[in-house]
């Protein structure tokens, strides 16, 4: 089992970036690797509650993010500074997360075998 980190930096509806990252995260969990997902910058907005893109014809992928726990993806991290930037409260997101400062993000990175930015 290796440690793999998916790093997201794009906003929720910037092309399919977050959806690609979601797929990648779920699949590494499925093949039983120790997967972590880190949201930084505008990517943290993908964890904002009560978004309903289906009302403008877009797929509601937030429902799948909510299922991460069911698939044993527990290591979900967000950049503390980015939460502040977008006025989000870490205790009121779609899923439970750990908020990290830059030093903690560096520590997380240092523990990985593979890192993929999506």
């Amino acid at each position, binding site marked *: 089992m290796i440690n793999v980190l998916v790093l997201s930096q794009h906003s929720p*509806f*910037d*092309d*399919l970036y977050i959806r690609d990252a979601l797929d990648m995260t779920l699949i590494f969990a499925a093949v039983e690797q120790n997967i972590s997902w880190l949201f930084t910058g505008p990517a943290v907005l993908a964890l904002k509650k009560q978004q309903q893109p289906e009302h*403008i*014809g*877009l*797929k509601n992928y937030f429902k799948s993010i909510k299922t991460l726990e069911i698939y044993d993806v527990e290591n979900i991290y967000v950049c503390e500074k980015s939460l502040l930037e977008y006025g989000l409260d870490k205790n009121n997101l779609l899923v439970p997360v750990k908020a990290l400062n830059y030093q903690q993000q560096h520590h997380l990175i240092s523990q990985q075998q593979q890192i993929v930015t999506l």
Partner: protein
Amino acid sequence: MARFVLSLHSAPSDHDATQRLIKFADACLSSGHQIDAIFLYQHGVFHASKQLNLASDELPINSLWQQLYDQGVSLMLCVTAAEKRGLDINNTGVFSVAGLAEFAMLASDADKWVQFK
């Protein structure tokens, strides 16, 4: 009544920009304005790919284009941008293959050119 040209610059995978352009076009028409052309440029050319076939819970891109086409809106694929991206310009469905010059003349004539990306 005003005359518009619209251009789409992002790929079909950018569903959000696509639905926005379509809704803007619908609002133009329902407000009594005229759309002289919708032009696919840059990554937008992939909308004219004959392969485009999305799952049923995704934005129904093909039928949205068909609806605009049925209302008589001229949907144009930029041949220069398409060739630079290796896109097959035969068999482009509701999109007509047009030169950049044709679009530039339409854009010069129109009251407004609005880009979507």
